[in-house]
C-alpha cells in the first residue's frame, strides 16, 4: 500500500485536471476555428504543404489573369485580321472585275476612290490600339506602327505571356509579318528568356544587329498590303489593265498569308483557353487538398469534445470523495 498525503493527492488531482482541461481547450479551439492546424507546430508537414499550395494557387490566379489579358489581345488581333482579309478580298474582287477591258477609264477612276478608301481603312486597322498600346508595333507599343505612307515604324518584337508555369505564348503579331512579308513568321514557340541567359556582351551586339536590320530593310516594292492597294489605285487611275492583272497574284499571296496568321492566332487562343480551364481545375484540386490538410474533421472534433467533457466531469466527480472528506469528519 502506498502512502497518500494531502499534497500528493492534490498534486495528482491538479495534474489530471490540467491534462483533461488542456485537451478540451485544444478541441474547443479546433471547434471554433474549424481548423485542424492553427500554428505550424500542430503539423509542420501539412503546414508547409498547405503554404506551398496557397502560393501555387495564387500563381495560378495570376496565370489566369494573364490568360484573360491574352484572350482580349488575341481576340482584337483576330478581329483585325478578319477585317483585313475581308478588305483584301474586296480589293481582289475589284481587281478581277477591272482586269478585263470591259470598263472604260472613267469608271476605273471612280473605282480608284473606293480603293483609296480601302487603303485608309487598312491603315486604321493597322494602327489599332488596345488600351494605350498599339497592338501591331512589336515592342514599340507606344509608337504608331504605320505612317500615312504605310511605312512601318515598329519593330519585330514578340511579346510573350506566361499562361501557365513555364508555358509562354506569343501575344502579338507585329506589323511587319502582317502587312509586309511572310519571311519571319515561324510558328516556333521560342522561350522568351533564352536570349537573356546569354552573356551580356553577346546580347548587346545582337540588339544592335536587330535594330540595324529593321532600320536597313526597306520594303521590297509591293510586298506590303499598302503598296498593293496603292498600286491598284494607281493602276485604276492610269487605266493600266496589265498592272491590275499582275496584282491579282499578289493579293492572293497576301490573303493566304493573313489566313495562315489567323490560324495561328486561333490556335494560340485555343491553347490559352485550354490552359485556363486546366488551371481552374488545378485550383479546385489545390483547394480540396488544402482543405484536407488544414480543416478540421468537424464530426470527429465534436465527438471528441463530448468525450473529453465526460472525462472532465468524471474527474470532478471522483475528486469529490477524495478532497472533501478526511478522518476528522468521523472522529467525535
Amino acid at each position, binding site marked *: 500500500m502506498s502512502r497518500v498525503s494531502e499534497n500528493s493527492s492534490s498534486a495528482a488531482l491538479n495534474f489530471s485536471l490540467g491534462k483533461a482541461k488542456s485537451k478540451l481547450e485544444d478541441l474547443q479551439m479546433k471547434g471554433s476555428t474549424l481548423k485542424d492546424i492553427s500554428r*505550424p507546430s500542430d503539423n509542420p508537414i501539412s503546414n508547409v504543404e498547405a*503554404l506551398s499550395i496557397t*502560393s501555387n494557387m495564387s500563381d495560378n490566379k495570376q496565370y489566369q489573369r494573364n490568360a484573360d489579358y491574352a484572350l482580349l489581345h488575341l481576340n482584337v488581333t483576330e478581329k483585325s485580321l478578319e477585317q483585313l482579309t475581308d478588305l483584301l478580298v474586296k480589293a481582289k474582287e475589284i481587281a478581277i472585275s477591272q482586269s478585263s477591258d470591259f470598263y472604260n477609264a472613267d469608271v476605273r477612276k471612280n473605282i480608284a476612290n473606293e480603293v483609296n478608301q480601302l487603303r485608309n481603312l487598312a491603315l486604321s486597322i493597322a494602327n489599332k490600339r488596345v488600351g494605350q498600346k498599339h497592338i501591331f508595333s512589336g515592342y514599340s507599343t507606344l509608337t504608331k506602327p504605320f505612317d500615312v505612307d504605310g511605312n512601318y515604324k515598329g519593330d519585330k518584337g514578340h511579346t510573350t505571356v506566361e499562361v501557365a508555369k513555364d508555358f509562354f505564348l506569343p501575344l502579338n503579331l507585329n506589323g511587319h509579318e502582317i502587312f509586309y512579308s511572310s519571311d519571319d513568321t515561324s510558328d516556333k514557340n521560342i522561350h522568351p528568356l533564352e536570349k537573356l541567359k546569354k552573356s551580356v556582351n553577346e546580347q548587346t551586339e545582337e540588339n544592335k544587329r536587330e535594330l540595324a536590320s529593321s532600320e536597313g530593310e526597306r520594303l521590297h516594292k509591293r510586298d506590303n498590303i499598302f503598296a498593293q492597294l496603292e498600286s491598284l489605285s494607281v493602276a485604276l487611275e492610269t487605266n493600266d489593265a496589265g498592272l491590275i492583272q499582275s496584282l491579282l497574284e499578289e493579293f492572293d499571296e497576301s490573303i493566304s498569308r493573313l489566313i495562315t496568321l489567323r490560324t495561328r492566332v486561333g490556335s494560340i487562343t485555343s491553347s490559352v483557353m485550354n490552359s485556363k480551364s486546366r488551371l481552374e481545375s488545378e485550383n479546385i484540386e489545390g483547394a480540396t487538398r488544402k482543405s484536407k490538410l488544414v480543416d478540421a474533421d468537424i464530426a470527429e472534433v465534436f465527438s471528441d469534445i463530448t468525450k473529453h467533457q465526460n472525462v472532465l466531469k468524471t474527474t470532478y466527480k471522483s475528486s469529490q470523495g477524495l478532497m472533501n472528506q478526511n478522518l476528522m469528519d468521523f472522529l467525535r
Partner: protein
Amino acid sequence: MSDLLNIGRTGLNASKKSLETTGHNISNVNTEGYSRQRVNQTTNIPITKGGTVHGTGTRIKSVTRINDDFVNKRLEKSISNSKFFEQRMERMSQVEDIFNDLDTDGLNQVINRFFNSFRELANQPENETIRSVVRDQANLVVQDFQRIQGSLNSISAGIDGNMESEVTDINQTLEHIASLNAKIRSLEAVNEEVGDLRDQRDLAVRNLSKSFKVHTYQDNKGQFVVAARGVGTLVTATQVQRLQIGTSNKENSTNGLPGSADIFFEGKPAHILTKKFQGGSLASLAKVRNEEIVDIKNKIDSIAYNLTKSVNAIHRRGYVNRQVEVGEQGNVSDVDSKGMTTGINFFKEPIGPKDSALNMSLSTAVKEDLSNIVTALGPNSPGDNRISLAISKIQHERIVGEDESTLEEFYLQAVGKIGLESGKARLDSEQADGLKAQAVSIRERLVGVSIDEEAANMVKFQHAYDASAKIMQTADEMFKTVIGIKR
C-alpha cells in the same frame, strides 16, 4: 512509589511531545517543501533494584524529518528537465508565431505577390499604374523581411532580459542557501538534525534547479556544497560565488549579436559561462537565443540576399521605360536627364549576406522614378516584357545555397524546421511535465503530511496521554492509601 509517578510523568511528557509534533505537522500541511516529522521514542535506561531489572519509563530520543536524499535528487533533476523544455516550448512558440502564415499574409505570400506583380507588369509593360503596384509590393516584401528580423531580435532581447532577472534570483537563492548553511551548522553542532531548516535548504536547492542542473554534496569537512553542472561550485558552506550578467560586443558574444547578455562569475567577464549551463531555463534560453534564432535569422538573411541579388542581376540588364537617345551606330547613351538608362538596381545592392534582410530597401533610382523599373531588354521598347518575365521566373528558380532550392522551398524548409522543433519541444515539455509530476508525487507520498494519519496519531497520543495521567492518578491514590495507614 515515586518511581511510578516518574514513569507516569515520562509517558505524559512523551505523549505531549508527540502531540506537539502532530500539531506541527498539521499546521505545516500546506507549507511548501515541508516534510513531516516524527518523534523517536525509546525506553529509559533500566535500573537494577533488589536483583531485578526495572524499566523507568520512556524518553524522547529525537524529532527527525522523514527524508530520502535520492528522491530529492530525482525531483531536482526532473525539475531542471521540465523547466528546460517548458521554457523552450514557450520561446519556440514565440518564434513560431512569427512564421504563422496560415491565416495571415506571411513572407511567403508577400514574395509570391511580388513576383505576380511582375507577371502583371509583363502583360502591360507600358502601364505606369502597374509599375507603382510593383513598387508597392516590393516595399511590402522589404517590410516583411524587416518585420521578421525585428521580431526575432526582440525575442532575443526578451531572452536577455529573462536571463538577467534569472541571474538576480539565482544570486539571492545562493545567499539564502549560504545563510541557511551557517544556521544549520551552528544549531546542529549542539543539537540533533534541524529538520525545518534542512527543508528550507532543500526547497532553495529545488528553486535553483529550475534555472540549471544542480549538484549538491557534503564534502569531507562536512561542508554543504552546491554546484552547477558544467559550470562549477557556487556555494561552499557559507562562501558564495555570485554570478553576473553583462553585455558583450559582437565578437565575443555567444550568438554573434552586439549587446546580447552573457553570464559569467562575478568579476570574471572574460570567462563566459552562458553556454555551459546544463538543463533548466538558463540553458534553454541560451540554446534558443544562440542556436534557433541565429539559425533562422541567417536563413532569412540568405533568402533576402539571394532575392535582391537575383532580381538586381536581371534588372540591371534592361533599359528604362522612357525614350532613350540612340546614336548613329545604334549605340545607346547610358545616361539621360533622369539618370542611368540601363544597369539600374531594383533593390539596394547588399554588401554581403549578413544582415541583408534588415538592411533591405529599394534602390534610390526605383524610389525616385517609376520609369526606372525596367521591363525591356532593349532600349525604346515600351512593349518589351522580357525583363519582367525573367524577374517573375526567379520565383521558380533554384537560386539559394548551391543552386539547390527555390526561395519558396528554402523558406518553407525553414518554417517546417521551426514547426518541427516547436512541436517537439511541446511534446518534450508534456513528457517532462509528466515525469516531474511523478517525482513530486513520489516525494509527497513519502514525506507529505497526511491529515488522516495525523488524526489517527492524535487519537493515539491523546489516549496514551490519558493513560499516563491515569497512572499518575493511581500513584497519587496509592500515596494517599499509604499515608492513610497512619491514621
